[in-house]
């Protein structure tokens, strides 16, 4: 049973992946405007024909798609054409090698920071459920969660970066270059991305924890004389965290391309900015490869959610849940 479910989920995921990438192909191919005009405005007829063949514009969309796909599977993400317009360029892969690690790090830091704050907060609120403290903090969290991250980012950039002059407003410093500068360059982006997530995560955890606290095994544990904090952390947290985990995993997928606005405000030049500039300068092959990576990330994180469910909640194992 379990094996069949896994196979079915994988097949579904593969189908979604195919449809996402194929629809991007169609979109790219049927766009108004000639990509050659944009990528190579000053080229000769032969040069144009060569580029047309290289981009796969001389074949139909199905052939085009499979050519791109087989290149991708061999690790060839296409060429990023130079703005000089003579058809020269650099491999998309080498640009990814710079941008992707940044975005993955930012995503990882954001998740760690958000969970470190959200988990204790969510448990605390559930423990004090329906008291004045809970009501006040929950209302504040609700309000905070509706502030867009770019508003937080711009506010921080002004107060912390410009007025107090504590942190650099723009730019990214790699960890290897200087660990302290690295974290300094990421404090404001991380806060902008995390504030909303902390609010969302702790609200989710609060609701599920309140439900768990009503279960018999909690009454049992407390009648055995176990301390409140032991019960909360060792008995209650795990069965209460499945919604939180789903949300966190999906947010991780979304953050890879979705942090682009924050990347733009703080000039971090991560994956999102790479994609945005690919779109702005009509790098067709790059657009296609980058969107495919995002879709893969989304699907992988979805599959991870399924696996996590089984690990966290034994009831789901073997399809009995």
């Amino acid at each position, binding site marked *: 049973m379990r094996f069949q479910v896994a196979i079915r989920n994988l097949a*579904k*995921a593969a*189908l*979604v*992946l195919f*449809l*996402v990438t194929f*629809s991007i192909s169609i*979109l790219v191919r049927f*766009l*108004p*405007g000639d990509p050659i*005009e*944009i990528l190579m*405005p000053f080229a000769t007829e032969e040069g144009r024909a060569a580029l047309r063949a290289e981009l796969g514009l001389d074949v139909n969309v199905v052939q085009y798609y499979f050519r791109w796909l087989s290149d991708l599977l061999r690790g060839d993400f296409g060429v990023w054409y130079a703005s000089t317009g003579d058809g020269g360029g650099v491999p998309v892969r080498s640009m990814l090698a710079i941008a992707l690690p940044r975005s993955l790090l930012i995503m990882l830091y954001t998740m760690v920071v958000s969970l470190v704050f959200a988990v204790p907060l969510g448990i605390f609120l559930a423990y004090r*459920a329906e008291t004045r403290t*809970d*009501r006040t903090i*929950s*209302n504040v969290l*609700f*309000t905070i*969660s*509706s*502030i*867009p991250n*770019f*508003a937080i980012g*711009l*506010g921080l950039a*002004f107060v912390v970066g*410009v007025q107090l002059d504590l942190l650099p407003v723009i730019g990214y410093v790699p960890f290897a270059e200087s660990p302290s500068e690295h974290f300094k360059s990421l404090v404001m982006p991380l806060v902008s991305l995390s504030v909303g997530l902390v609010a969302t995560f702790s609200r989710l955890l609060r*609701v599920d924890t*309140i*439900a768990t606290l009503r279960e018999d095994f909690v009454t049992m544990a407390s009648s055995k004389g176990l301390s409140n904090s032991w019960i909360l952390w060792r008995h209650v947290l795990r069965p209460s965290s499945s*919604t939180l985990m*789903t949300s966190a995993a*999906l947010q991780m*997928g*979304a953050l890879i*391309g*979705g942090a*682009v*606005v924050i990347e*733009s*405000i703080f000039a971090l030049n991560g994956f*999102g900015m790479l*994609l*945005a500039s690919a*779109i*702005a*300068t009509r790098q067709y092959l790059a657009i296609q490869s980058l*969107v495919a990576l*995002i*879709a893969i990330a*989304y699907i992988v994180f*979805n*599959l991870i*959610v*399924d696996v996590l469910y089984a690990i966290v909640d034994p009831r789901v194992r073997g399809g009995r849940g």
Partner: protein
Amino acid sequence: MCFTPSSTRVSGAGVASVKRAPVGLYLASGWLLVCLFSAVFGDFFPLPKWDEFDYDNLGLPLFSEGHLLGTDYDGSDVLSGLVHGARTSLGISFTAVFIGSVIGGLLGIVSAYRRGWVDSVVTMYFNVSLAIPTIVLTLVMVALFATPDIGDPSAGWPRELVLIISLTLVIIPILGRLARGSALSWSGRDFVLVAESIGMKKRSILWTHIIPNVLPAMMSVAFLAAGVVIVIEGGLAILGVGANPGASWGSMLAKNRGELAIAPHTTLVPAGIIALTVMALNYFGDYFRLRIDDRESRI
């Protein structure tokens, strides 16, 4: 299930929800009324025109004479920009959410009602659109359709139109999945089974029992979605593909973002207005959700 977005999960059904002070609701409705009023009657306000540049008064601070919220670096009045921006931002948001809810709702309810291959195709469509982050989808759409030729920025469809279309595409799967899930859960309720057992036609069950119950749930999410759309529009503006410079709240802050150190109010005030509006919409959505939970627990 493989693809379950956390946002559509109705958790705790009112048990653990916090009773929110009604004063928040009054503030939220008050603010939204102010915005709607500005959006509709903004032309009659005694203000300078939003796209008129007062070259003698560049970058005036807040509370200057003749310009209550100051001017930006090319002398356009911030307050009248906000008033005009209300029309663009709310117009784009409400239109996209309305069309998206109608199409998504129809797709969702029909697929829950027909089941079979229709359901598989519709669900697959929802999953495929959800696999692309909203900001990426809209970025591709707007960049490609609004500016098909990067050499000639005037070519292509009007920005606002492309924004509405692409944001509608974002809303359809979100509300569609909600409608489908809600329709499925209602069709399993006792009163529907009773209606079926007494021989009521499936189509009239749909109209009398399913749709009236699915709509309130969609309403509450539609308010949240309207806020989400305003935020996406702001993000797109920051990336340079939003509404025309200064025409919406998002494009106002995007236009003035470079002057953050010199004239911070020209960026931070629109950002604050966006935050307030999204907050108000979320309050409304949440209020509706609580009322639905109350009602459902009584059914």
